[in-house]
C-alpha cells in the first residue's frame, strides 16, 4: 500500500522520468514529501512559469517528456503560460498540480481555482483525479496522449486527499480504454470528404506532382523535428535537390551546407527565401501550420504553386491553406517513399542566383555593436567548435529574429525558441531546463533587456544548481520589436517602450554569483565572445546596442511576402 503521491513518483520513474521542475505549496505537499526521498531529481525553479518553461527546454533539447509540478491556485495559474507555449509548439510535457481536497472543490477554498477549467484552452488534454483508483490509468494515459500523434502538454490536477490516499495502486491499473480510441478509428466514422485517404495512390500522386514540377520548394516546419524525421528529410533533399526554406521552429532540420537551402521564410525571413517561395510552382509543406507570420497575406503566399501538405495532425490539413494534395501521415514514413531523381537544374541555378543577388550584409556604420554581426560571429565560433555540442535558447523580440536570421543551426533541437506563442521570459528558464538535461553541453541563452526581466528569478536556479549557462543579453534599452512597429506603423508614438531605466545587469548578475562583462564597441566583440565561451561556469555578456536598430527585412502585416520593407522609408 502506497500513497497516491508515492505512486506518482514511482510512475514517473517507470515512464523514464529522471528530473522534474517545480515549486512546492500547500496542496502539493504530499507529493513533495514523496519527492524528498523518492529518487527523482527535483529542480526548484523560482516561479511556476519558470518550471513549465524549464520542462519545455528539457523536452525540446532531449526528446524526453518534461515534467513540471505546482501547487493549487496561483501555482497552477502561473503554469498556464508555459502550457500554452507547449501547446502551440507541440511540446510533450506533463504538468502535475495540487488541488484542494475533493470535499472542498467548489467551495472557493483557500488557494482553490478551477485548474481543470482553465486548462482546456492550453493543453492537449487534462485530468482531474476524483478517485484514487483512477490515478494509475490517468498517469499512463497522460504520457500516451502527450507523446502520441501531434505531441502536446497534458495536465493532471490531483486533490490533496487523493495524494494522501493509501491504495494498492498496482491493482488499480486496468489498462482502461479511456482516450485510447485511435485517430484512425475516429476518422473512419467521418464522411469521405473530410477523411484523408492514406493510400499508395496518394503517395504516387505526390511523386508525380514532384516529377512534373519545374520550380518546387520544400517548406519545412517544426513538425519534422518533433516527428524525428530530420535524417529522412535530409536524405530526401540529397536525392531530389529540391531547394528548401524553414520556419522559425524548423531551423536545424535542414543541412546548412546545402547550397539550395535558403534559410528562414516569412515576416523576417530572407529576401531570397521569400522570393523563391513566391515564385515556386510546387510547395511541399511538411510539418507546418501555414502560420500568419510565415505566409503574410495568405492569398498571395506561393500564389502560383500547387501545394502538397504533409502533417500528422488532420486538423492542420486545410485549416488555412487548401492544398492540392493532403497527406495526413508521419513525415518519417512518407519522405522515403517520395524520393526520386528530378531534373530542376534551371530552377536550382535561379535559386543560387537569388541567394547571390540578395546576400546578407554585415557592413554597419559606426563603432557601435551591430547585433546581427555579433550573432553571426557567435554562430561561426559555435560551428567551428567540434568538441562541444551547443544549444541556443532565445527569448522573444528583435534579438530572437536576429538569432534566427544570422545564426546557423546544423542539428535539430539546437535552437529552442518560443515560436508559436512568442513568450517573453522563455529564454532563461528554457536554458535552465536544457542545461539540466545536457550537463556536458554548452547552453547559450540569447535574450533582450525586456524579456530578460520577465523570468529573471531563474538566475537563482542557475546559482543553486551551478549551471554553466551562458547569457548573451542584447540590450537596446527598449522593448525593441514593439518600438520598431511603433516607428513603422504607429507614427513614431513610442508608447511605453522605453526601458532605459533598466537595472545594472552586471550588478544584478553578480548578486547571483554570475560574472559578466559589458561591451559597447565592435572591436570588443570577438574577445568578449571568447571569454563567454571559455568561461567554466555561468557568464553574462551584456551587449549594448543602438536603440533604433531594426530587424530587416520585415513583411508588413497583411502584405504579401514579396513586399518586404528593408529600411525605414
Amino acid at each position, binding site marked *: 500500500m502506497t500513497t497516491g503521491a508515492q505512486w506518482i513518483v514511482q510512475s514517473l520513474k517507470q515512464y523514464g522520468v529522471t528530473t522534474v521542475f517545480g515549486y512546492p505549496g500547500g496542496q502539493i505537499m504530499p507529493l513533495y514529501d514523496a519527492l524528498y526521498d523518492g529518487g527523482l531529481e527535483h529542480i526548484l525553479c523560482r516561479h511556476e512559469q519558470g518550471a513549465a518553461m524549464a520542462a519545455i527546454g528539457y523536452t525540446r533539447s532531449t526528446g524526453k517528456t518534461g515534467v513540471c509540478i505546482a501547487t493549487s491556485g496561483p501555482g497552477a495559474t502561473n503554469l498556464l503560460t508555459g502550457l500554452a507555449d507547449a501547446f502551440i509548439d507541440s511540446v510533450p510535457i506533463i504538468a502535475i498540480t495540487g488541488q484542494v481536497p475533493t470535499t472542498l472543490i467548489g467551495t472557493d477554498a483557500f488557494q482553490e481555482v478551477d485548474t481543470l477549467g482553465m486548462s482546456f484552452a492550453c493543453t492537449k*488534454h*487534462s485530468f482531474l483525479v476524483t478517485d484514487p483508483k483512477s490515478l494509475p490509468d490517468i498517469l499512463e494515459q497522460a504520457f500516451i496522449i502527450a507523446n502520441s500523434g501531434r505531441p502536446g502538454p497534458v495536465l493532471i490536477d490531483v486533490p490533496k486527499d487523493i495524494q494522501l490516499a493509501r491504495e494498492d495502486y498496482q491493482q488499480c491499473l486496468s489498462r482502461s480504454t479511456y482516450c485510447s480510441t485511435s485517430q484512425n478509428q475516429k476518422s473512419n466514422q467521418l464522411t469521405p470528404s473530410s477523411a484523408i485517404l492514406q493510400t499508395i495512390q496518394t503517395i504516387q500522386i505526390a511523386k508525380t506532382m514532384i516529377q512534373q514540377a519545374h520550380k518546387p520548394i520544400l517548406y519545412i516546419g517544426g513538425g519534422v523535428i518533433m516527428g524525428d524525421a530530420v535524417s529522412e528529410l535530409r536524405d530526401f533533399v540529397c536525392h531530389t535537390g529540391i531547394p528548401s526554406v524553414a520556419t522559425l521552429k524548423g531551423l536545424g532540420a535542414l543541412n546548412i551546407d546545402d547550397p539550395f537551402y535558403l534559410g528562414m521564410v516569412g515576416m523576417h525571413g530572407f529576401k531570397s527565401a521569400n522570393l523563391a517561395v513566391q515564385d515556386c510552382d510546387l510547395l511541399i509543406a511538411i510539418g507546418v501550420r501555414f502560420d500568419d507570420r510565415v505566409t503574410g497575406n495568405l492569398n498571395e503566399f506561393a500564389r502560383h504553386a500547387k501545394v502538397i501538405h504533409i502533417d500528422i495532425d*488532420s486538423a492542420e490539413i486545410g485549416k488555412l491553406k487548401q492544398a492540392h494534395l493532403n497527406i495526413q501521415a508521419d513525415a518519417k514514413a512518407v519522405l522515403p517513399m517520395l524520393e526520386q531523381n528530378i531534373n530542376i537544374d534551371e530552377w536550382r541555378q535561379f535559386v543560387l542566383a537569388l541567394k547571390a543577388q540578395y546576400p546578407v550584409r554585415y557592413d554597419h556604420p559606426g563603432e557601435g555593436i551591430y547585433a546581427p554581426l555579433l550573432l553571426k560571429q557567435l554562430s561561426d565560433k559555435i560551428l567551428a567548435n567540434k568538441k562541444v555540442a551547443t544549444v541556443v535558447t532565445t527569448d522573444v523580440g528583435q534579438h530572437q529574429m536576429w538569432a534566427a536570421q544570422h545564426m546557423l543551426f546544423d542539428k535539430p533541437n539546437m535552437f529552442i525558441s518560443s515560436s508559436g506563442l512568442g513568450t517573453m521570459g522563455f529564454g532563461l528558464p528554457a536554458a535552465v531546463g536544457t542545461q539540466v538535461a545536457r550537463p556536458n553541453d554548452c547552453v547559450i541563452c540569447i535574450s533582450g533587456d525586456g524579456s530578460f526581466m520577465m523570468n529573471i528569478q531563474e538566475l537563482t536556479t542557475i546559482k543553486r544548481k551551478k549551471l554553466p549557462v551562458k547569457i548573451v543579453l542584447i540590450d537596446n534599452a527598449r522593448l525593441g520589436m514593439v518600438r520598431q512597429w511603433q516607428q513603422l506603423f504607429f507614427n513614431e508614438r513610442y508608447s511605453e517602450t522605453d526601458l532605459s531605466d533598466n537595472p545594472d545587469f552586471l550588478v544584478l548578475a553578480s548578486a547571483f554569483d554570475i560574472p559578466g562583462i559589458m561591451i559597447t564597441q565592435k572591436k570588443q566583440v570577438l574577445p568578449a565572445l571568447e571569454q563567454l565561451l571559455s568561461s567554466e561556469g555561468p557568464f553574462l555578456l551584456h551587449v549594448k546596442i543602438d536603440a533604433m536598430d531594426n530587424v530587416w527585412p520585415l513583411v508588413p502585416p497583411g502584405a504579401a511576402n514579396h513586399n518586404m520593407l528593408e529600411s525605414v522609408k
Partner: protein
Amino acid sequence: MEHYQLAITAYDRPGSLERILRVIRHRGGKILTMNMQTISAEQLTLSFNLADRNLKSQMINQLTKLADIVAISDES
C-alpha cells in the same frame, strides 16, 4: 447560412462536455440546438445543430483530436 448536424459519442469524464463546447466556440462554431444524454456510466452522446456549413470539416477535425471523443459523425 446552411447549418449542419454532428453526432458525438464521448467519454463522460470531468471536463469532457466543456472541452467539446470550448472547441466549438473557439473554432467559430455557433450552436443552434444541442442535446446531451448519458448512455452509460462511461459515455455520453451529444447532437448538435450548428450554423455555417463551411466550418464543418474544420470543426470535425478539431473535435476529433480531443481525447474525450469516442466517435463523431456528420448527420446532415
